[in-house]
């Protein structure tokens, strides 16, 4: 038995969303030019010439940002029920959530001071 309400709209949006890439790719396939010049085979038509292979080792700095992002992503999971039930919970829960966020802001300050958020 399905008891969540409002999900028929979700289903409708899901169907529309899944149609968008199909329509975009199929539409451009319908109207594309059939000429097969050498320009057509380039990665960025009328753009920059790509140099070297696409398989390069990315900078390890990206990984630092990913790690910090993951922590705050998991924090979002804990704050999500608080945000949904905000009206029913009252002031005490607000303070408790502030304590929760404050503890994690310490981590953000640490990451900032250590220079983990600086690019170069």
């Amino acid at each position: 038995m399905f008891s969540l309400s409002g999900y028929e709209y979700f289903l409708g949006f899901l169907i529309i969303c899944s149609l968008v890439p199909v329509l975009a790719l199929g539409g451009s396939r319908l109207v594309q030019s059939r000429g097969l010049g050498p320009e057509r085979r380039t990665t960025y038509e009328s753009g920059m010439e790509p140099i070297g292979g696409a398989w390069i080792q990315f900078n390890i700095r990206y990984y630092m940002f990913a790690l910090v992002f993951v922590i705050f992503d998991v924090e979002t999971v804990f704050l999500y029920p608080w945000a949904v039930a905000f009206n029913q919970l009252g002031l005490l829960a607000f303070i408790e959530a502030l304590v929760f966020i404050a503890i994690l802001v310490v981590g953000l300050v640490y990451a900032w001071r250590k220079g983990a958020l600086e690019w170069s």
Partner: protein
Amino acid sequence: MNLGEGVQLVSFGLLTALMLGSALGVVLAQSVVYSAFLLGLTFTGMAGLYLLLNADFVAAAQILVYVGAVNVLILFGVMLVNKQMAFEKVPGLALRQATTGLVCAGLFGLLTTVALTTPWMLSTTTPAGDGAIVAIAQHLFSDFLLPFEVASVLLLMALIGAIVLARRDLLMDNSATGLSDDLELKLPERPKASLSSGGEP
């Protein structure tokens, strides 16, 4: 208004087909990038199954944690792997593959037995539906308050640990400076050349 029985059945079939197909793709895809993206698709399908089970908070957590965080980490791990690196040939590959196959087949058999012998009884209590997440929040901020706050301390520890470990990686990257940089509260600068060659796609 709720979703009809037929819509649920069709959704379940589509999601199951999606999950099985993408899970097979994770294993069989030649490129590891395709595998990582198909893993994200498998996780998303699992979130859809949670939605069909009236568990919208679990579905949201699945999307946030598995698709948003775990899969991003896997993709970053893939991005950091250099393809030009020559992988050494593993000795005794056939034996290893046979052992892995045997273990996986045994696990599959065990899970199939459990699935077939478990009496799948439908719960008689009505599902909480939209009120479930409010109930979770009320528990989280009353009798589960201490675990909730301790979770933030755990996240803080994970963040600091990740930064310390990643900084050590960076230090090993230019080992010329060695331990003297460790005392300063700064990440060591990398040479500009490696930044421009490796950083920009």
